[in-house]
Structure formats: C-alpha cells, structure tokens
C-alpha cells in the first residue's frame, strides 16, 4: 500500500512524473471550475435564483463571514486565496469517498505546496497592507533577539500546516485501508464517514490557520498603534 499518491505514476517523461496527486488535483480543479462556471453563468440579483447559485452564495457567504470575524477587516481581498484553499482542500477530502479516488491532500507534496503558498501569501498581504518596513519590523518584536525565533516560527508553522493536513488525511486513508483488510463489512463505512468529517474539519483548520497568519501580519500595524496608545496613556497617568 502506498502512503502517498505521489508514488502512483501514470506517465513518465524524462524525469517528469505524472503521478496520481497531479492527476487528481487536475480533476478537483476541473470539478471546481466547472461547477463555478456553470453556477455563475446566469447569476441573478433577484430573489429567484438557481440552486447552484444559492449553494455557492451560502458557501462564499460563510467563508466571507469567517474571514471577517477573524481578521476584523474587509474580507474581500482575502477571499480568493483563502476561499480557493478551503474549496480545494474540502472538495479533495470530500471526493475521498469515491472508490479509487486518492485525495491530493493526502500527499505531503500537495500540502507542502499549499503551505508554501500560505508562507508567501503572508508577507504579500502583510506588505501590501502595512508596507515592507513595518512588516519586517515585526520580526524584531518584541526585541531584536527574537528575530531568529520569529523566522523559525514562520517556517515551523508552515511545516506544521503541511504536516497536519497530510498526516490527518493520509492517516484517514490508511486507517480505512487497514480496516478494510481486518473488518471489511461495517467498520470501513464508519471510518469513511469519520474520514469525511475529519477531512472537512482539516480543510476548515487549514484555512482558519492561514487566515489567522495572514490577518496577524496585516493587523500588526493596528496592534502596534494600540500598544503605543496604551503605553502613552500609562505614562500620562
């Protein structure tokens, strides 16, 4: 049994391997884009709208509200990135229920790629919001001595993001496979259901953590200002 779908190679050419991770990623992407295109072809403002539109509006609305609550900012700039993360991970984990489907999120390469995307998104959003200087200054807070720890923290949380998602999804698939061998009748079904639940929870956790990291970078200026304000008021007293 293969731990990761990366090892399932469908096509190989001069060192480039077309493995199951990439193929199923394309499948998930295709499904997402197709559903999006179909659902948003005839969008209407009126209350009478298609079920697809209603479903997508509910999902997007949910993501939007979550981001708004966490960031306490206008969620619209964050939605495309964080929404794509959530939808991709969620659909990948959901399609795990289909026999033969190997979720791309069960590959450390995929989760690492997503974590790397988050890793780069944090400074991009942070710098775009508060500028390079202020963003880099965060690494020197609360003192210069903390710079290495802050840098390590950046990498470690990216690694944690990748490994957490990979471990949960891979373990779920492995447990389902092992139980299928031990007790093929009932337990795999229950474990599949749990796997679905865990998959959705992991998608939520991954997205929420990414939101928190991005928001913390973008809100650094506000926090600093609040800190300065507090210190000023204390000195006055």
């Amino acid at each position, binding site marked *: 049994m293969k731990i990761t779908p990366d090892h399932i190679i469908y096509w190989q050419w001069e060192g480039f391997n077309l*493995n199951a991770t990439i193929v199923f990623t394309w499948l998930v*992407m295709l499904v997402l884009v197709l559903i999006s295109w179909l659902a948003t072809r005839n*969008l209407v403002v009126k209350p009478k709208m298609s079920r697809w539109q209603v479903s*997508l509006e509910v999902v*997007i609305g949910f993501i939007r509200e979550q981001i708004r609550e966490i960031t306490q900012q206008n969620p619209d700039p964050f939605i495309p990135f964080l929404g*794509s993360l959530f*939808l991709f991970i969620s659909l990948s984990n959901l399609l795990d229920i289909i026999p033969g489907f190997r979720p791309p999120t069960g590959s450390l390469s995929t989760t690492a*790629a997503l974590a790397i995307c988050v890793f780069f998104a944090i400074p991009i959003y942070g710098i775009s919001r508060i500028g390079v200087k202020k963003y880099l200054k965060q690494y020197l807070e609360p003192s210069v001595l903390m710079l290495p720890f802050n840098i390590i923290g950046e990498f470690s949380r990216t690694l944690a993001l990748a490994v957490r998602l990979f471990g949960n999804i891979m373990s779920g698939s492995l447990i389902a496979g092992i139980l299928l061998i031990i007790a093929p009748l009932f337990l795999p079904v229950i474990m599949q259901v749990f796997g679905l639940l865990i998959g959705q929870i992991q998608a939520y956790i991954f997205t929420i953590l990414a939101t928190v990291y991005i928001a913390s970078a973008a809100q650094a200026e506000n926090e600093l200002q609040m800190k300065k304000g507090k210190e000023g008021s204390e000195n006055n007293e």
Partner: protein
Amino acid sequence: MIVDLFTVIVQIVNFLILLFLLKKFLFNRIINIIDERENQIGKQFAEAEQKEKDAKLELEKQRKGREKLEREWEDNLIKIKREIEAERGKMMEEARVAVNEAQGEWERAIRAQRDAFLKELRKLSCQQVFLISKKVLADLADNRLEDQLINSFIAQLEGLDGRQRQEFKRDEFKGSGGQIRKNKVEINTAFPLSEEAKDLLIRKVKQLVDRDALPVFYVYPDLICGIELKTESKKIAWSMEHYLDLLEMGFEDIFMGNKEIVNLKDKQDIT
C-alpha cells in the same frame, strides 16, 4: 522520499491556476452579485425608510390639516350658533314688537268701538229716557218736562248759600271781543224756552243771584235735557248728563269685566 519537488512545484502552479480561475469564475462574480444584492436591498431599505418618512410627514400633514379643519368647523359652528341666536333674538324682538303693535291696534280698535258704542248708547239712552220721562210726567202730573226741569233748576238756585251767591256776583264775563261785560250771565238750555219760562228765570236770577244780572239765553242740544247758569268761571247746572255719565261708567265696568255695577244712588249731583 515523501515530498516530490516536481510535484510540489506543479501543485503550486496548479493552485495558482485554480486561484486565478476561481477568482475569475466564482469569487468575483459571486461577491459582486452579493454586493449588488446588498446594495439593492440597502437601496430598497433606504427607499422604504424614505417612503416611511414621507408617509409620516404626509400623515402629520394630514393630521394637522384635519385638526385645522376641525378647529375651523368648531369656530364656524360657534359663529353660526351666535348668528342664529342673534337672529332669533332679533326675530323674537320683532315679533314681540309686532305683537305689541297688533295688540295696541286691537286695543285701540276695541276702545274706539267701545267709545262709539257708548256714545251711541248714551245718545239713544238719553233720547229714550227723555221720551219716557216726558211721557211719564205728562201722564202722571199733566206737566211738561221742561217746566219740571226749570222748577228743579230754580230750586237748586234757591239752595245756594250767601257765599256762593257772592262768588257769582263778583265774577266777570269776558266777551268774544275781549271786552269785559259785567253782570252778564248765560242761561243755556237743551231745548228752546218759552217767554214765560224766560221771564221766570230772569226774575229768579235777579232775585236769587244778582239784582243787576243780565241773563242771555242760548240753546245747546248737547246739554241733554239740562239747564245751566254760567258766568266766566262759575256754573250751576242741572241735566241728565250726570246720570248718563254714571250709566256709561256702569257699562264700562261691565265691558272691563268688573262685576260690581255702579249704583246710581251712590253718586251725587254735581254743580
């Protein structure tokens, strides 16, 4: 190796492509639609609020208008009531005046009719009494009524005391031309006197009133069976007029609703 670098790079590229596609086909469209709907709902809310405000303003305007109309109606009502009251008072006053005038007219007419009736009655009564008395006296004593009247008048002259006679004597008579004629006395009768009666009266006047008196005789039918001796301010007379006056008063009392009829005996002769 669990992590394949090529797969990582491909997955990063895949995710970026997915991000681009979803942003284009999903998020932007959905967010725009949601925002558009929110704006529309916001607009509708704003319109609804504006309409509510307008409706409240209109309601307030209508309420004020209604209150103004009610006030005007009440003022008009009070004014009309006052006008009606004033008109009623005026009409009542006019009616009262009209009734009073009608009543006055009526009373005047009644009084005039009564006076005319009494005058006629008096005249007829006098004529009847005179005729009856004349006939009775003629039947009983074979005397003329005129003689009885003259006798009665002479008896009255004889009844004058000394003071009364002196007053007659001192009185002067002013003639029609303004010249004063002393000793002149008028003897007025309702009927023509015979020469014997005139001589008798002259003789009695000279004897009883004034020796120098110069009696002049006149006939006045209005004296009603009477005879009078008259100077400028003094007069002594006897006639039926007094009795007729009493009779008239009796009739007046009857007309006015007085139940007590005047007793002729209670009245005294006046001279």
